[in-house]
């Protein structure tokens, strides 16, 4: 359980210089998530175009792990469909739970969070952005496609 496994350079960089920080004006989906134990509070907003996530942003405040995870997550889901994004989330949960596997291919920068699996109390921080992303998706699969695409 070395701190270096947790606070990697990539995490610290995303934390101090987050990507996609902000709010989308007229998002297709958005959601807010809390982590009661440390007060993390994150908002995720998404813009769907042509069946894929064209833009993703996050705002709110939290610890390095939750903020870096949100920064990386918003990078990753861009260009993905809702179903692809949900698959990524599943992969991510697997990784931070400590399951074995090669996650680098699909999860990109997010593998920097693999060390979280050795810090059980921090798993909730790492997954917050992803859970909030999933919460933003409508339960009804039909609604998960963007309306703009339907109009065409």
């Amino acid at each position, binding site marked *: *359980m*070395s*701190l270096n496994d*947790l*606070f990697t*350079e*990539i995490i*610290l*960089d995303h934390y*101090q*210089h987050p*990507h996609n920080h902000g709010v989308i004006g007229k998002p297709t989906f958005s959601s807010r998530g809390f982590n009661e*134990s*440390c*007060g*993390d*509070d994150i908002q995720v907003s998404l813009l769907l175009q042509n069946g894929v996530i064209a833009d993703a942003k996050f705002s709110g*405040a*939290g*610890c*390095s*792990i939750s903020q870096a995870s949100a920064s990386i997550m918003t990078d990753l889901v861009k260009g993905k469909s809702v179903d692809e994004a949900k698959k990524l989330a599943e992969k991510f949960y697997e990784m931070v739970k400590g399951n074995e596997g090669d996650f680098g291919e699909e999860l*990109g*920068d997010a593998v920097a969070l693999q060390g979280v699996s050795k*810090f059980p*109390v*921090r798993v909730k*921080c790492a997954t917050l952005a992803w859970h909030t992303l999933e919460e933003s998706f409508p339960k009804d699969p039909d609604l998960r496609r963007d309306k703009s695409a339907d109009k065409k």
Partner: protein
Amino acid sequence: MMRNDIKKDFPIFAKWESMGKPLIYLDSAATTQKPQHVISTLDEYYSKFNANVHRGNYELSQLATDMYEEARTKVAHFINAPKPESIIFTRNATESLNLIAYAWGLNNLHKGDEIILSEMEHHSNLVPWHIISRHTGIVLKFIKLNSDFQLDLESLKQNLSPRTKAVSVVHVSNVLGTINPVKEIVRIAHEAGAIAIIDGAQSAPHMPVDVQDIGCDFYAFSGHKMCGPTGIGGLYGRYELLEEMEPFLGGGEMINEVFPTTSNYAKPPYKFEAGTPDIAGAIGLKAAIEYLEKIGMQNVEDYEIELGNHAAKRLGSIEGIHIFRPRTTGTGVVSFTIDNVHPHDISTILDSAGVAIRAGHHCAQPLMRKLQVQSTARASFYIYNDESDVEVLAGALEKAAAIFKPRKKADVVK
């Protein structure tokens, strides 16, 4: 004077030491560790005296009942309540405060009545009033915090009105360590014709408490924060008020006569103790008080204040630290933030050094907003801590600050 081998009384420290992971426990405001005397008392109770109380007419039940009632007497003596019958056993301070809100509040408050709380209250002294407010339409007002993290008594006076029915404040803040002038607050409340409620969760464990001197109508506390077992807490109530009040929970023990659709109630404190109480918990709490009284509560207070002051001074030398603690009075609680390091990250870094502190809103979200922080880190000291713990803490904090030192944006990977 404090013995310097107190740590030995608490088996958890030796256990972790023997596992090669010494424990530096600085989260006693959340819950304290338990001395061997308390642990052994529980063991002895269950192995020798276990029976239900106030119900059986056989010897074992009488022994258990006597032990349970002696615990009540012990608690009464500890906070100088005028008589044992003015002590109600509850699960914790939270239940004690809810008991007041429901049994007194729900039955006595009307739309437009006012309750005065303060800006530094724990959720346990806020949410119950929110619930009662939803049922009755009462109005909540707040005593303001001044820039030295103390309550502004002028603001209390300004909040008073003919509709003020209660003033309910925390004795010692679990975030700031501020010791509030409760005697003065009670006097002001009483002059205005309001009852006075004190949340003593952070005072009973840490200083001599005299409810008669304070003059309050209610005083709530938790056993697990004062070396006692989990599951037991208490409420002191002025006896005449307890007598007038409707009960809270209904069930066995708290009744006189029960008919199919009505019932009448036993005298306090039994009126407020429905069902089988945490008998072992009460007896364990008695053992905790015995332990603390042996040390002496004045010694506890002196020691903690000194250690708290020392810690505040030592931590104050760390770059970028902000300490939320009154300049003059302050107990063994030291809350802080460090620039660029989130409290949750601080806590993880300390944990890897064996130091247990708490990071979060400390069940005081309105206070966090007032302090304009999302959360803080909090080190809370108790009798088993000493200056060497402060050194380890300070060293680990310096490491945290170093890890999170601002750096230039890296080239974006991939």
